[in-house]
């Protein structure tokens, strides 16, 4: 009997078996370049973590931190009063990606996740069935926990370690089906940071080896990064590597695409490339502000030193974003791509506080940059009305011609909306790291911004020095130096009523 294939053919065929490992279903869902939908624009959202608008010269900062953003802004929409909904990554990013406030998505803790009932209300799900290739990457493990929840709605999900210099995390590799829980377990047992670990012996061996690896990396790169290599939770990364990858990836992705890239710089540690070290070795000193009721006790000189390093790191980020923009311009991608440049929260160097691990919601920690590079735009457009990160989702849906769902709590940003910009809208920010996830807010900080005024409200803090309310007129006191809250003041009362109503509404669910 003659068989249709002989032994040699069978072996040839067998050699192709490894190809079975390719994720065919996801590739099949991607449109080929020949069938790409030219009418649908690409969307690239680039989030630089902890980028405060206050420290960007684009918005008038004294140091020339963002010459590239200023250049790019000449053909973009620049938002001058853009707010994150929170003062750290998890809630800020969750709001950006769900178009809802933290009291709705409930990702309000470090390594917190979006409430199960809300998780399907995300940006990527809205783009499904529209022919888009949806890709995400984040350096930041906090936002990775959120992006992991959206995995069913993504064609490409890239793990943080894939663009990092080391490869020490194991929960993503061993437990990819249960990453978020396994990650908290790993964080408990193995030294992802310098906390006491739950593994008595192995964690010490692993930790010391990781420390040795870090020293090796820093030694290898000391000519380029003389102050050290930045890292978070034991991952060490180079901004330049991530930008190189982004340049290459967006050029090759099947179009139309929706890409969300979340990069850690200028997040602490502020370790810039050598070209930016000592860039701002000047005598400039920021306005000295009184110690906050939540002061961490840092002296002004310490804060000024860190602010300088942060400013230099921002200049580094600015240069790298400029490189990405130029590359996209060169290969013609900007002709059909909306590029959104923003951040998840800001950073503080004042009132005895450094960073963003704080209960306060002063401007530097919640006001973030927002630039939208609009295909075909030839001149700069400035938007001065207050806007929020919850507005990004409806705006992107609008730009892609997708209906905006009812659950969305944001609005289409001007000038893309068909209506006139409305500055009488109330925008909210909050911090509730220690409040239980599914419970009324009884320990939290809130802020409402309306027009020129901003009211902050602190609930449940034991410290008697913490005021219940603070109010500032941002038009003539953008440094928030003079608390104008008064029970007899009409604006104070109006903002207080708006905020308390909103908190009561949020609490009614529990």
């Amino acid at each position, binding site marked *: 009997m003659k068989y249709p294939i002989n032994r040699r053919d069978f072996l040839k065929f067998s050699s192709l078996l490894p190809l079975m490992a390719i994720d065919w279903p996801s590739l099949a869902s991607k449109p080929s370049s020949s069938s790409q939908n030219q009418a649908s624009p690409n969307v690239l959202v680039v989030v630089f973590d902890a980028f405060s608008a206050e420290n960007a010269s684009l918005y008038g900062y004294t140091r020339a931190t963002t010459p590239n953003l200023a250049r790019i802004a000449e053909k973009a929409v620049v938002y001058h009063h853009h707010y994150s909904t929170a003062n750290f990554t998890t809630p800020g990013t969750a709001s950006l990606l769900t178009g809802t406030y933290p009291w709705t998505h409930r990702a309000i803790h470090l390594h917190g996740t979006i409430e199960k009932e809300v998780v399907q209300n995300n940006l990527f799900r809205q783009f499904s069935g529209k022919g888009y290739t949806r890709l995400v990457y984040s350096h930041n493990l906090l936002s990775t926990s959120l992006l992991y929840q959206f995995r069913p709605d993504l064609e490409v999900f890239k793990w943080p370690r894939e663009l990092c210099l080391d490869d020490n995390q194991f929960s993503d590799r061993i437990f990819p089906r249960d990453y978020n829980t396994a990650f908290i377990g790993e964080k408990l047992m193995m030294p992802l940071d310098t906390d006491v670990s*739950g593994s*008595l012996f192995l964690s010490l061996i692993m930790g010391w080896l990781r420390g040795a690896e870090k020293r090796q990396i820093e030694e290898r790169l000391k000519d380029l990064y003389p102050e050290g290599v930045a890292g978070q939770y034991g991952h060490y990364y180079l901004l330049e590597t991530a930008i190189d990858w982004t340049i290459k990836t967006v050029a090759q992705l099947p179009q139309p695409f929706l890409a969300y890239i979340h990069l850690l710089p200028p997040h602490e540690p502020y370790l810039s490339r050598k070209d930016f070290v000592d860039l701002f070795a000047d005598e400039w000193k920021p306005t000295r502000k009184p110690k906050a009721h939540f002061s961490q006790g840092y002296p002004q000189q310490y804060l000024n030193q860190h602010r300088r390093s942060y400013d230099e790191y921002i200049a580094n980020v600015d240069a790298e974003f400029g490189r990405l923009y130029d590359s996209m311009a060169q290969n013609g991608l900007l002709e059909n791509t909306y590029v959104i440049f923003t951040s998840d929260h800001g950073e503080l160097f004042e009132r005895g506080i450094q960073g963003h691990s704080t209960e306060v919601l002063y401007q530097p920690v919640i006001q973030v940059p927002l630039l939208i590079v609009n295909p075909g735009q030839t001149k700069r457009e400035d938007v001065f009305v207050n806007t929020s990160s919850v507005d990004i989702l409806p705006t992107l849906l609008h730009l892609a011609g997708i209906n905006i769902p009812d659950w969305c709590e944001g609005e289409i940003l001007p000038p893309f909306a068909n209506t006139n910009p409305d500055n009488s809208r109330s925008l909210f920010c909050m911090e509730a790291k220690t409040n239980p996830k599914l419970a009324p807010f009884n320990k939290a900080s809130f802020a409402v911004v309306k027009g020129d005024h901003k009211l902050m409200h602190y609930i449940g803090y034991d410290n008697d020095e913490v005021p219940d309310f603070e109010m500032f007129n941002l038009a003539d006191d953008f440094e928030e130096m003079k608390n104008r809250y008064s029970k007899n003041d009409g604006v104070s009362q109006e903002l207080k009523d708006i905020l308390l109503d909103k908190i009561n509404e949020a609490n009614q669910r529990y």
Partner: protein
Amino acid sequence: MAIFKNRLVSKQEIFFAFVACSFPIYIWTFYKIFNQIPAWIVKLNIGEVASVSAYAVAFSLFESLLLCLFFLILGGILPERFFRRKFVAHVMMMMLVSSIWAVIAQFNYSEVYGWTFAELLPWLVVYLFSILAVYFLIQRFDLFAKAVYRVVKGISVLATLYILVGVIGLVVVIIRNI
């Protein structure tokens, strides 16, 4: 094969060695879990807290097995009178001393993490001396070795419970990942 069998300790001794290894490891893991629970319950529900704990205790089971294996290999390599004759007592005391040093290192981890090998070396020498000290105590004093053996027998009930928890944790982890 016969040579290999001769160099292996009895099943009961293996069990007690495993008890000696798992006892400090689980105590530490439970301490960390209970330490973290207040932070977890604000963001995780009861099921999620149990799942994270399952990963932790399953990891401890793995760590205990690894250390027990190390001692079994050591027992197999060293001549009988040097280690195997008082195997359980040696393992228990080595684990006890190592655990004390490990706890000290854990509480100073942010410093230890940054040490070069040269900085670590003096501490490794001190650690090895403390191990040798308890080793000679066990070798020299039979009464001491017997007392340690009795302690191991005493804690074996509790340790069996820990091991059971570890096995349940492992099953939970497997179920969550299939």
